[in-house]
């Protein structure tokens, strides 16, 4: 099968809160000295694709829509031996919202050819919209299965994939016809692998397609419909109002008794 994995580069979510700043003018996070990383759910999606290819063959194309720095995560994917990598660059001051991302990714994928499965992460660790996968399915009028954590196929049933997805109550297994979009969530089986050093070195010499919006037949005007509709009107760092009262007491025993009383008071009023 022919698989596309959409990858997003984000501000490292592990950066400490005290270093986090906001650019009030653009209503975006100020990158400062923080690192940029591949969104974790995108990495889970890529791992799912790699495992699928190991078992069933096929080709993996990775696509990123971002600024020039996003080449880094595509090189990372190349080091994991994906077949093709494509970067669609933009220079928007503000973050492209998920509608823009879906429209751009759809145009890119159409230009690349025919695919059976598009994988995306469940949501991103920065803005966390959790919309791109679903919107991408709508751009193609394909079905979408979300929160998937396992992907399989059976050689006797061509064109069918078996997907396990997480639900609030447990899990579901569905069979779906390709083409479709699948959004991937994390579980203990799709923990991203680490590339071999040799492959990392080689990844820098691999071809990487670099497209502008014009190359995929889009411009800001044609994206107008996606850019309007929702707008970020405010971005603030919340002020921590909680005042933590540390239980006091001469001895640890007294402090534990104090803590127990506070806990019991809350539990009983609940």
């Amino acid at each position, binding site marked *: 099968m022919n698989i596309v994995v959409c990858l997003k580069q984000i501000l490292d979510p592990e950066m400490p809160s005290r270093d986090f700043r906001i650019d009030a003018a653009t209503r975006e996070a100020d990158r400062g000295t923080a690192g940029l990383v591949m969104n*974790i759910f995108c990495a889970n999606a890529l791992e799912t694709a790699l495992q699928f290819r190991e078992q069933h063959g096929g080709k993996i194309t990775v696509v990123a829509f971002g600024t020039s720095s996003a080449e880094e995560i595509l090189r990372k994917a190349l080091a994991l031996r994906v077949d093709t990598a494509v970067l669609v660059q933009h220079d928007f001051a503000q973050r492209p919202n998920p509608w823009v991302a879906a429209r751009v990714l759809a145009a890119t994928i159409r230009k690349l050819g025919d695919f059976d499965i598009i994988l995306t992460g469940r949501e991103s660790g920065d803005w966390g919209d959790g919309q791109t996968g679903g919107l991408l399915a709508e751009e193609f009028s394909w079905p979408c299965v979300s929160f998937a954590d396992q992907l399989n196929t059976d050689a006797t049933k061509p064109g069918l994939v078996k997907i396990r997805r997480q639900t609030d109550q447990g899990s579901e297994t569905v069979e779906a*016809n390709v083409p479709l979009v699948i959004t991937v969530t994390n579980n203990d089986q799709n923990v991203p692998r680490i590339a071999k050093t040799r492959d990392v070195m080689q990844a820098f010499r691999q071809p990487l397609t670099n497209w502008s919006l014009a190359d995929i037949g889009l411009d800001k005007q044609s994206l107008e419909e996606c850019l309007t509709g929702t707008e970020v009107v405010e971005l*603030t760092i919340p002020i921590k109002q909680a*005042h933590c009262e540390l239980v006091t007491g001469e001895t640890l025993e007294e402090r534990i*008794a104090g803590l127990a009383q506070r806990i019991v008071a809350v539990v009983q009023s609940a």
Partner: protein
Amino acid sequence: MTSVVISCVFTWTGIDRAALGVLGAGQRLAQELSGRHTILILGSPSDDLVAEVARFADCVQVMSDPMLANYHSETTLTALTEACRQLNPAVILLGNDSYCQEMAPRLAHRLKGSATGDALSLKAEGEAVLVTRSVYGGKALATFALRRKPAVIWVRARAYDPARPQDASAEIVHMQLKIEEDQRVVLIDRQTQPQDAARLEDARVIVSGGRGLGGPEPFTHLQSLASAMGAQVAASRAACDAGWVPAGWQVGQTGKKVAPELYLAIAISGASQHIMGIADAKTIAAINLDPDAPIFHHCQFGLVDDYRKVVGPLREKIIELLA
């Protein structure tokens, strides 16, 4: 023209706390917009369920079909889209369960509206709806203006005050829509956790352990503390990643988002991705050896000490007080 605010209720969840939160959010937003609060029940509802929700709205639209009795990612979405199309709403509200999260952006796309989710608060401002939610793993709060109708919003359902019964009885309309079953995706198995395995999302009291516990064994002590308090046990990502406890116990941005009355964090430092999962907890308390741990910025009360000296005696004391 009066704005229509639709709150969606699905029969597979029925009227639980989350649904009441969605209806409460819809009721208040409809008031702000001087609009009409319409509840759309989709699935295969009983007359009792219809009568029950009718207390919370001006109008109840019933979309009933045996084919819709269970969730199906494509068929349910098609039915929901068609139903909403007929009602021409300004706002459509959904809960934040995984089914709703799956449908909401696609619904907005089909209706050529706008969407955002995980809403902590909603406000009408002129023609727009302002939605506030956490971004950047809880490090920032963003307010979105949704200007294109319909505004499709999934809300952090349990964080909203439940709907209140209204005086006048609602108009009840049975919708007639022809929906075809979508065969492109076929459900072949549905695993639900046993009824007695209460969901973390619904837990009233949670005792949670983190990296500072140092291994899987201390979780047995947390378990007995939890039993004494009538609580459920959860864990931070560090503890789950280390394989000390199952991944299903994880609370945080990449785990479960919980809303208990009390969340007791033991040996959890309080990274922002963890805090994001407990933002809706009514009371947060912590036991941590490090007085500078970020968790203390989010607590109402806490104790700075080694959990190993605290958990056992604390359990004894709580049993004594609750007796």
